[in-house]
């Protein structure tokens, strides 16, 4: 465990070392946040409320957006690129020689990035959001607790998907930016930009059977109280099921990737 702790600490240190990057990252997040909030303000503006306005009010929608940007800035899934780069540059065989399970190292790398993101991204974002749009309050203490639990599952689901996409590199090294395709799909179907309850019914029905909406929409829905306590428990259980399914799938792919490297020597 100490070894993983070291990886986490190193990652925090390197992230802080890029001073300029840190400041810019903050400003970028705040701009994107503001841009999204203004779109919602226009959508809800002038007291003319479309059918969408009945589901959730403007203040809640702003909170939804703030929390979504916050989660996006904290969730770090560098594993996708790490595996891709290591495979492409032929370092993966060496990585396998390390005495610790490789995925564990990659995970602690990402957790380290999350810790530093909490300090240098999440906190300034919250401060900016409070100043610009008021405090994004949760619906209640229970909702907040549910949100924390659910966010944890969200991160695990996102991380597992990223690791899987990264592993495509073991078979097709050139398909490096497949990860960006996945990211584009996740952005939409996770409800991180527009909650899925605004989508056409057909899309919503399909989406329930996909893992994506359980990454952003589920925890944020719980936070703003759109998801009731009973539904929240059910949603978190579904998240748990997805973690198990994706985890098993990843383990299976990893096993094959590993034996592939061992045969070819990377």
């Amino acid at each position, binding site marked *: 465990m100490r070894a993983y702790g070291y990886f986490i600490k190193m990652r925090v240190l390197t992230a802080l070392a*890029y001073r*300029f*990057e840190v400041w*810019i*990252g903050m*400003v*970028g997040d705040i*701009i*994107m946040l503001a*841009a999204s909030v*203004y*779109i919602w*303000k*226009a*959508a*809800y*503006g*002038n007291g*003319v*409320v*479309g*059918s*969408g*306005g009945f589901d959730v009010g403007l203040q809640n929608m702003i909170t939804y957006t703030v929390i979504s940007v916050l989660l996006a800035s904290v969730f770090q899934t560098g594993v996708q690129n790490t595996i891709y780069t290591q495979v492409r540059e032929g370092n993966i065989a060496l990585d396998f020689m390390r005495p610790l399970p490789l995925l564990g190292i990659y995970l602690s790398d990402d957790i380290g990035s999350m810790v530093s993101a909490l300090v240098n991204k999440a906190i300034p974002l919250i401060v900016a959001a409070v100043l610009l749009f008021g405090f994004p309050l949760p619906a209640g203490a229970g909702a907040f607790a549910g949100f924390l639990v659910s966010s944890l599952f969200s991160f695990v689901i996102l991380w597992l998907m990223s690791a899987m996409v990264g592993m495509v590199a073991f078979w*097709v090294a*050139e*398909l*490096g*930016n*497949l990860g*960006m*395709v996945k990211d*584009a*799909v996740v*952005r*939409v179907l996770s409800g991180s*930009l*527009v909650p899925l309850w*605004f*989508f*056409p019914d057909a899309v919503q029905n399909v989406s329930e059977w996909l893992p994506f909406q359980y990454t952003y929409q589920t925890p944020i829905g719980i936070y703003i109280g759109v998801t009731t306590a009973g539904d929240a428990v059910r949603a978190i259980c579904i998240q748990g099921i997805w973690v198990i399914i994706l985890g098993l799938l990843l383990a299976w792919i990893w096993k094959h990737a590993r034996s592939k490297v061992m045969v070819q020597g990377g």
Partner: protein
Amino acid sequence: MNEVRHYVTVFGYYAKLAIQRQLEYPLFLVSWLLMIPTQYFTGIWMLKIIVDRFQPLSGWGFHDLAFLYGLGLLSHGLVVVFFIPTWGTEFAVLRGEFDRLLLRPMNVFFQFVTGYFNFIGLIDLIPGVVIFIYAANLVGFDWGIGNLLKLALVVIGGTLIRASLYTIIGAVAFWTKRSRNLIFMAVATMERTTMYPLTLYPQAIQAVLTFLLPIGFISFYPAEQFLDKSTSLELPLGLAIWTPVVGLIFFALAYAVFRFGLQKYESAGS
């Protein structure tokens, strides 16, 4: 004239080499072909969902929004084809790639920008052209010669404004060694300010995006004019004149900043 022919010849050969290099990795192309259209078609879809569920955004219905979105994407696509190296100024600085360019008897900015003709970037133009034509027909765009000429001037001017902004931001790396995140931020911000109506944002921000950074000229003000909306910026003559003029001025400024930064270039290693 001789000089111009020289630069055109070299540009032609650079482009040939770049296309050859990009075709060396065909699967890479396939993944872009999946990625870029997904990104932009879902983007416009999000707008449609919002408008359907709520109301036109500060007076812009879905047809108008799609027109603006498409118009913005056109100059975005051209920048991605012709000026993408500016996004990677940081890498060029860190790897000392300007060494090679400085050792050749040609303009360094020219070599830098044309050295990687981004053939793959044509993919960015696909959603742009599709969405623009689709929306132009929805809003009853007049496809007459005069309007097409105006459109061409606006798109070229918009491309220049974007290219200038990326050049300036990329050149920050000459001083700080880093500009990648700044570029990412600019790309994301550009999307939100050229493909969505500026009137969504507070007056102060509109002013900044008009007078400080002339982003409004790229697509928003021209779109207002094409769509015969009450214009939020009163100017004599049309935006078809103003956009390319602003583009040229801003481009000259960007070139000066790049030149200045190049003097601060420290090469790589010792």
